């Protein structure tokens, strides 16, 4: 079947790569957190904030993702999971550490078995502080890391950044 796959692969649509589309796929990884930042990310998908209108889409497969969002504390067990997820992501995928526990270990930094932040496991592109991180911060971070205009979606006459 490998040869069949290779033949079909040569059929490429010309000009596909140069099309600019606004569609970003987010994979959410939660370590063994307190579920605060978890709930705030899920609130981003709820009618209150609704990141789907901005083009973001939640996915269950890390290899589709444009953004890997890490929340929650990381201990040894979560570290294994995070490495497994990170190895499946593409090289272009950006990593966002949301919440103070994923950035630096937060309040629990220094305890045995707690890793001080996601950047002790994988390289992180953007840190978002907060305990629990606010949905507007998560949305701002996602817009910035994917190159979108951070004023999109705000009401007329208001500017955020």
């Amino acid at each position: 079947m490998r040869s069949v796959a290779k033949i079909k692969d040569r059929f490429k649509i010309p000009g596909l790569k140069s099309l600019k589309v606004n569609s970003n796929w987010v994979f959410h990884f939660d370590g063994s957190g307190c579920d605060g930042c978890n709930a705030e990310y899920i609130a981003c998908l709820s009618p209150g904030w609704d990141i789907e209108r901005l083009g973001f889409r939640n996915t269950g497969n890390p290899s589709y993702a444009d953004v890997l969002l890490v929340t929650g504390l990381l201990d040894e067990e979560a570290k294994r999971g995070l490495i497994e997820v990170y190895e499946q992501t593409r090289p272009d995928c950006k990593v966002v550490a949301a919440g103070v526990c994923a950035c630096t270990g937060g309040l629990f930094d220094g305890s045995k078995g707690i890793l001080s932040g996601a950047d002790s496991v994988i390289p992180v592109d953007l840190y978002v502080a907060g305990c629990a991180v606010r949905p507007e911060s998560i949305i701002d971070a996602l817009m910035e890391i994917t190159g979108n205009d951070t004023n999109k979606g705000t009401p007329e006459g208001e500017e955020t950044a």
Partner: protein
Amino acid sequence: MNKSMFETTEYTSRFLQLSEVKDYRQLVYAAERMYGTGGFGNSVAMCTALEGAAEVVIPEKAQYIRTILMELSMMQENLLRLAAIAETLNFDSLSMMCWTEREKILEILDDLTGNRMILSMCVPGGVRKSLDPEILEESLDELNVVMQKAETIKGIIAEDSMVKRRLRGVGVLAKEAAQGSSVTGPGAKGSGVDIDRRMLGEYGAYRNLDFVPVTETGGDCLARCMVKIREVIQSGELIRKAVENMPEGSIRSEMPAGINGEWIAKIEQPDGVDTFYISGSGSAFLDEIGVRTAGESNQKIMDRLENVTLENEALIRLTLGIDSCLKER
């Protein structure tokens, strides 16, 4: 499971480890972060235990403020559970309705205290600052809107035929079984057992607010969901009464420099009863802390339920309140 897993420190509780390096005032902030959405309740429990061990009586106004914030926190957590249950039923529109109402409650909390879930308002000896009366008035108006929507949600859960078909008769827990077991919270109240730590009046202003727990007969998932939504409505009424009857006065008492003594504090969280035990022998660093969350106590009942299938198990665990905060973290 090989032995080396236990030798590494994977399974130790991070909250307990912090008690070696942080004194009792800082530990309250750590107790909040054990479980994010139920954070304020845990800080109330920790503070109640500390005040009990130090034999300090906190002012009445502080009790009222703690009650208001506690009820708001419980409302948002109950709505979160209902949203998760509706999502498991494939009922996306009810789930989104619950999320929207929860957002309004979180905005009220944001206006009153500055943060959405982890408030850090409760300190040993009272509360950190008082609530602005103007903002409180506006919040009550917003609360009225939420209460109307909560009545709508209650109507949907009680009367929608498909919801009833999926929830009725699922995971039935008889009243005798619930009374003789460690189940608390909606698991017990849905079976007709009227236990609630708020009745005892050990914390908060509940003895002045005529608190009566919400119970349902039936013992199945439908009864437990009805308990949850009725508790949301009950919380709204309790908040209104507390705002009307709030006394004047100071909001904080003096706490001693070191804690000498031991105390157990049990408070009511949306999933059940959380237990905090502390013990100190004179210094600011506590000797022993023990925590048991509601999820741990409720978990043991799963073996005694019948007819738990792959499709039902998620619903039963959610309504009994097992899957949240399982371990002391």
